[in-house]
């Protein structure tokens, strides 16, 4: 797993300096959907319960594409990530989560005065650990309403010192951030037999690492899942096929490097995500496409074209429970 740089016209580029590269590759922070593992939304958390002693394993593949650069650099970005989420129900109300990005690939192509350049890296990303507690639970026959705050920490397990033949990669292309970033939020779920509505809101405090600090992130999401099949429920526990529509609204503050604000970073994005989900008693299969509805980015920050998310979840029981 190493950083790489290639030169399409055969000539090496002159060192442009970390600052110039940072400006060249400034783009919207590639945010992996922080999707929890219990059945519910595809791209974010829900407040659905996880039984005491129950474990859930979730695997995802996330592909991000960003292009359409209006600057002469004609930048285009591709990112691929394969995060796994391990969930454990410590008690009926307290659930623990670990998001492990086993594989993160980022690459950018851009045009410089010396020719086209590609830079990128592969590697293990930053782990996110958090807990969620059910604060409000209103159960009715065939429906439940839950509200659950969550809090956690992004741990700098990914490398932030990758380099290639040109030099050290900009922060945005590193597998990890190098910083310890706490996050807090609240999730709401209203689930009924024919449909489900989920919403969340949260904030991540991005801290400084090696004189660089990504802008803080505030986010709010919504999801509506409608059961397409079966139209009528028989006995037992049949599999459910859902049509899904989700919304992800995010504001990101400007990055800071050596105390100076990067005016070409941060902004507001709003994604709409149509998707599909098949839910059984033991597993979930799902996929969604995140499409930008609004991108109000600062300066020359590169906006996203789309993001594809696909994954499955599988539940199991452990002998451990409190």
């Amino acid at each position, binding site marked *: 797993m190493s950083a790489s740089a290639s030169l399409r016209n055969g000539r090496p580029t002159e060192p442009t300096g970390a600052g110039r590269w940072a400006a060249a590759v400034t783009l919207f922070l590639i945010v992996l959907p922080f999707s929890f593992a*219990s*059945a519910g939304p595809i791209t974010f958390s829900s407040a*659905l*319960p*996880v*039984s*005491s*002693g*129950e474990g859930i394993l979730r695997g995802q593949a996330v592909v991000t594409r960003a292009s359409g650069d209006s600057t002469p650099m004609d930048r285009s970005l591709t990112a691929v990530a394969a995060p796994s989420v391990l969930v454990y*129900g410590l008690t*009926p*109300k307290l659930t623990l989560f670990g998001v492990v990005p086993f594989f993160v690939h980022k690459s950018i192509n851009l045009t410089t005065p010396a020719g086209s350049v590609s830079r990128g890296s592969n590697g293990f990303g930053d782990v996110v650990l958090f807990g969620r507690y*059910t604060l409000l*639970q209103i*159960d*009715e*026959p*065939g*429906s*439940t309403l839950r509200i659950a705050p969550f809090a956690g920490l992004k741990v700098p397990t990914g490398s932030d010192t990758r380099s290639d033949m040109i030099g050290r990669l900009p922060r945005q292309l590193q597998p990890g951030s190098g910083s310890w970033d706490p996050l807090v939020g609240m999730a709401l779920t209203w*689930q*009924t*037999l024919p449909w*489900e509505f989920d919403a969340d809101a949260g904030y991540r405090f991005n801290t400084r690492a090696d004189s660089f600090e990504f802008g803080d992130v505030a986010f709010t999401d919504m999801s509506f899942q409608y059961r397409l099949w079966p139209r009528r*429920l*028989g*006995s*037992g*526990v*049949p*599999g*459910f096929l859902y049509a899904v529509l989700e919304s992800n609204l995010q504001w990101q503050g400007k990055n800071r490097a050596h105390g100076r604000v990067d005016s070409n970073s941060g902004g507001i994005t709003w994604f709409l995500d149509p998707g599909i989900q098949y*839910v*059984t*008693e*033991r597993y*979930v299969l799902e996929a969604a496409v995140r499409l930008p509805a609004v991108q109000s980015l600062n300066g020359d920050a590169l906006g996203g074209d789309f993001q594809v998310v696909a994954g499955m*979840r599988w*539940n199991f*029981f452990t002998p451990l*429970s409190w």
Partner: protein
Amino acid sequence: MISAQLRSVDSMRWGVPCLLALFVVVTILSVPPASCAESQTAPDRAVVKVVGMACPFCAYGIRKHLRSLPGVKNVEVDLAESKAIIEVNGHAKPTDAEIQQAIKDAGFTPGSIQWQASAGDALTKSAEFSVTDRKSVV
């Protein structure tokens, strides 16, 4: 001729009571001894309301927690009816409090619990008894 008529009267005097007695015996033995079967069959299944259950993925935890209770040999979950049916093996039986706690441990709210004998088993046993006995009488 008179003695034959007298013998006929005597036959009727003893024959009618005998026929009546036989009729009574057969009638008694033909009645399905349902009450007798019920009193000998303890409740072996419980229908438990599970409040708040609304998706297939959530049913797994409910099933596992109920299945781990003492004496439980099978658990069936019904999403549409918001219930779980617990079958016990007859040697042990979970208490209502244990069932309620299992539902809570699964993250849901327990509702009513109704114990019942397996109706099919009770009817089958009583039907077999009456058919067998009729054969023996006939």
